[in-house]
């Protein structure tokens, strides 16, 4: 009997009432985050109330999707069973991107040879379909 080779799935986000609007926007190609109407702070990751002032007046606000690499790493080994689905992608780059508006987002830098990736590099968001109704905001170099 031929054994069927099954692809190991990558973990997907669990969509909750707190995060739903982020993922809905992402699926339509838009990057949004919560911003506090009282103290104007950006709130990221999504929260029920402002983590700076406590206000519940948070509104989902579009961002330009542009920023710079603040820090990055090259993943060279799989650690843990939950992430075995990434084995085929190694080596790949995960990074902290500081968006022009302020918040820091954790993502991948794609569309660029690893050797060219550097702290301070300007990047822009690009959405990558990862599952039914789920697109992940990733980043590629911009000139």
């Amino acid at each position, binding site marked *: 009997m031929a054994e069927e080779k099954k692809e190991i799935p*990558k*973990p*997907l*986000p*669990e969509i*909750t009432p707190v*995060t739903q609007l982020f993922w809905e926007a992402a699926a339509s190609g838009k990057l949004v*985050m919560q911003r506090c109407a009282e103290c104007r*702070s*950006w*709130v*990221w*990751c999504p929260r029920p109330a402002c*983590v*700076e002032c406590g206000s519940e007046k948070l509104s989902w606000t579009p961002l330009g999707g542009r920023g710079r690499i*603040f*820090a*990055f*790493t*090259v*993943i*060279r*080994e*799989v*650690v*843990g*069973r*939950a*992430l075995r689905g*990434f084995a085929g*992608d190694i080596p*790949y780059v*995960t*990074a*902290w991107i*500081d968006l022009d508006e*302020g*918040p*820091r*987002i*954790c*993502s*991948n830098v794609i569309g660029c040879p690893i050797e060219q990736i550097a*702290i301070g590099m300007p990047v822009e968001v690009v959405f990558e379909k*990862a599952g039914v109704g789920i697109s*992940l905001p*990733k980043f590629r170099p911009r000139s």
Partner: protein
Amino acid sequence: MSLRGKAAIVGVGETPVDRLGGKPGEPRKVTAEYLSWAARLALEDAGLTKKDLDGQGLAAIYTTNHSQPFWPEEAANILGIAPAVSLAGGNGGASAVSLLGHGAAMIDSGVVDLVLVVAAAAPFSERGRTRAEPADTRDFEMPFGVMGPNCKISFVMSRYMHESGMTVDHFGKIAVTARHHATLNPDAYLRKPLTLEEYKSSRLISDPIRLYDCVLPANGGKAYIMASPERAKTLRRSPVYLLGWGERNNASAGPRSNANPLITGILESGKAAFEMAGVSHKDIALLALYDDYVPIIMLQIEDLGFCGKNDRVFFEKTDFTIKGDLPIQTGGGMINCGQPSTTGGMLHVIEVARQLRGEGGARQVADAKVGLATGLGAVNYGKNFGCTAAAILGSEP
């Protein structure tokens, strides 16, 4: 409220660590066995019996591979004791140091006069079910292939190198020093001397983190017993007094959505510990710093105020060995002695206690009267550690 001199460590116990039990035919011990073993060793060290703990305090640290919501109760059940107070170590790797303060507060308030802090984990021999992750990790890190702490601390390290100009030589010096101390510690797991060249040529795991930057996962159990100063005087070991203590969780240097990841909560918890202890930096004979990764040792030395931020010259000039200016990781640290999951931080409390009791053997720091231990736990999204704690211990109250 000050906890200065209000409680003392009167017994310590450590099982040997191993990395066995994952492969068929290997000897296998489970968490309960390491837990029971460590508790017995600490009781023997203190000259106490299990019966002495009925109606006293018990603290158990949650581990990632054997986590169930009623773990402190299960720990009491495994040991067969009936605590009057159960404390939970839920601060990950910071728990061992956090519990020094929590236990001392219970003792100082008169609720109990003994507290057993016990921790064990068997990540190699006892595979837990798939563990629950914090929602930020589950939803905004794992889908991007963020490989746990290796990856997250790599972000911190890459930024640290960028801002400070620290190079592989700076990190290597720390790794080589810690291993040197491990060669002097019969209980260390990695005891072969490490050269700077070997450090530099170790394989990259998650750039810039390489193999010898990383902690060594292991099976094992550790315990310490605290007592009121009055009770401590009646017991067989020289008491090791809690002089200063601080805890700071979910710290954020700057806006929460854009924090400085090179400043840890140790800035605050360490300051609180120094203020409570009323000692100065020059009084500290040794540092036992939470060491899941080499660069984190350096960030803590900065945050504790032994040097400025990004102080390359300090790290170049300072001798961190037991005979040097500022001894650190005197037993080799978790990187060389092993990290039984979130319970690994117990090592640092126990190492300071041993040094202050003058039981360091070949690795003894001369005239050690005051030492400092830290704990760190959880790596938060876009920042560094979610849980931090610092404690200053002394051989005199």
